[in-house]
């Protein structure tokens, strides 16, 4: 039997998020109750049940980033993007702000990672300042940057 976590990972990579229909299809294929699949999908950080913007900005919530002012920095990012209380995706559907535990790039704190919605490619930006952040966002907005695929 296929592992439900792997099935959810594959589905999210294909669609960018897990819709109710996707969860139902996985439950049916694996012969599991929907509640069980839903339980797994909501347990892990990797899974999201709502569509996201073209780019997902993960703000690192790690200790080193926190000590270097993550809280105020994340507030600044949200203000820059014009996100209102409770919102995570910008009105134009370009950016979604999420939080990540730690990318292990603590020496570059504060850090964000920008990933395409399917999670195939990502780029980490470190040593962030207000000016650097504004430039990064501007670059993504105006040039619709493609995030380089990792050299492997």
């Amino acid at each position: 039997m296929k592992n439900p976590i792997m099935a959810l990972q594959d589905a999210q990579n294909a669609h960018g998020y897990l819709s109710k229909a996707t969860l139902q299809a996985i439950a049916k294929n694996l012969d599991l109750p929907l509640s069980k699949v839903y339980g797994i999908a909501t347990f892990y950080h990797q899974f999201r049940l709502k569509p996201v913007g073209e780019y997902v900005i993960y703000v690192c919530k790690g200790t080193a980033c926190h000590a270097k002012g993550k809280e105020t920095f994340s507030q600044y990012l949200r203000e820059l993007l014009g996100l209102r209380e409770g919102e995570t995706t910008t009105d134009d559907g370009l950016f979604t702000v999420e939080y990540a535990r730690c990318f292990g790039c603590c020496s570059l704190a504060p850090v964000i990672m920008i990933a395409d919605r399917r999670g195939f490619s990502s780029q980490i930006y470190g040593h962030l300042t207000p000016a650097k952040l504004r430039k990064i966002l501007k670059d993504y907005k105006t040039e619709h940057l493609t995030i380089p695929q990792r050299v492997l």
Partner: protein
Amino acid sequence: MATTHWLTVKVPLASCTIASGAEDILNEVAKLEQIDVKTVGCMGLDFIDPWIELEADPYPPAIYAHVTAKDVERLVQEYLAGNLASAYALRRRTEQPTGQDAIPVLAELDAWKHQTKWVTRNCGIVDPESVDDYVALGGYQGLQRSLGMTPEDVIEELKQAGLRGRGGAGFPTWLKWNICREQAETPKYVIANCDEGDPGAFMNRLLAESDPHRILEGLMISGYTIGAEKGFIFVRAEKPLAAKRLEKAVDDARAAGYLGEHILGSRFNFDVDVFLSAGAFVCGEETAMIASIEGGRAVPRQRPPYPATKGYHDHPTTINNVETLAHVATILTEGRDAFPRGTTKTPGTKVYCVTGSVKRTGAFEVAIGTSIRQLVYEIAGGPPEGREIKAFQIGGPSGGCIPASMADLSLDYETLQAVGAIMGSGGIVVIDDTNCMVDIARFFVSFTKAESCGKCLTGRVGTRILAETLDRIVQGKGAPSDLDNLATVCTSMTTASLCALGRTAPNPVLTTLKYFEDEYAAHILERTCPSLVCSPLITYHIDAARCIGCTVCARNCPANAIMGELKGVHVIDQTKCVKCGTCIAVCPQQAISKRTGGE
């Protein structure tokens, strides 16, 4: 380039160096002629990222720090002309007189000379994507040697070496393996834990990205010893490069005959799956990790039975941290006598990640028993100019905050536990005077609250009560009775929680209460945050005497909370201010400051 030299350029490709521009450097290097490019991992000296290393006869190999793509051509030309003045350090001194005596050798640098390179010896040297390169540097000899020994002899070797688990708890590795080996039931399984969940710890990522075959070799030796034919590597999807390198290592090892049937001509059959963790801190608990590999929610269960008797699908299973497995491979290769000395109770080395308020951040491998002072002040260089260290946060969210006055403590399992911290994974975040200890405690508790799996009451509700109480305190709404309540809840959690996550989650609160009670008192009794961190208790102000009316702050304020005309004094509208701190960062006159209390 008009030269007959043949140049080798090493470019490090790891998460940290890529984020600081190593791929641009690689593209630039690829344009050069008559060179060999070798991609390597990270050597742990994050403060010099991105670096490159040049080597061509007759010059010594030279490491260059903070390289950008546009420096590459110039540095290569200089190097090939015999001018090494721009180098950060030489990998080794060659016999030929170089005339460059002022350039230090790596082994003489403070950041390097106090280290004991054991499991990280190949990091930044071996090509992590080449099994041949690993073998050329002595790789898989530990496996070969093990296969010539009986499993009992391998266990005896680890027992004599005195290896203890490097994932945090420090359980003797030989004992764990022996219990699993003695189980009659088959099949058995071995699991490498690369689910690095502690914020501030990246030694597992570094090993997986820079020397993945060493981890794999250790896992194979554990499989041979306990009698398993199947292994898993459990790695975070959040660390994609580590996962890809481990997957490639497994594929390459299989192609080269190190995995599969009759490995190296023996009767040992073994194969490995890389399992991408979907991300949950509680997976660090071994029964939770097994539940996750089985495909369900990562919820721990009561132990005993321990995984050594009933683990993956109720079969005997051994789980080791990847750093432990790297130790195993190195000990079996070098022999137990070569295992570096640590303390009497704990021989060997540990990789620590030192970040936060230090001059040199990075991952440093030192002998167990090295003092915090030597690690933080000598190796990592102490705090940046003008800053003062207040505390060391050791061991991640389950660890504790130790005051700077205790810097002479030895870094070993027993000493750290005695002062309320834990070795944990070995992350050390150095906290300076710009940080508020109550806020730090709140940060960790909000982390463990979010990561609690919800199974046991003390884990689920205890973390919530701690978080809500600390939230009140940092908002200036705390009451003196809150301190007693915190202590009571902490005690319940440490005694009654099901797993280590719940039992250790109070450590940040207990240690900050013990060592930094004055900061709690200021928040509760005076409604102030002496470190000027907790935003509900601080306000921003512009000094009229210093403000030159340049309008930079007003233009940068995301909340449009700053008013004033060109060349006129600016004022902050306190009702609009979101306290993001941008104005302080951009003001050229240092005219903006934070205040607490009074208003």
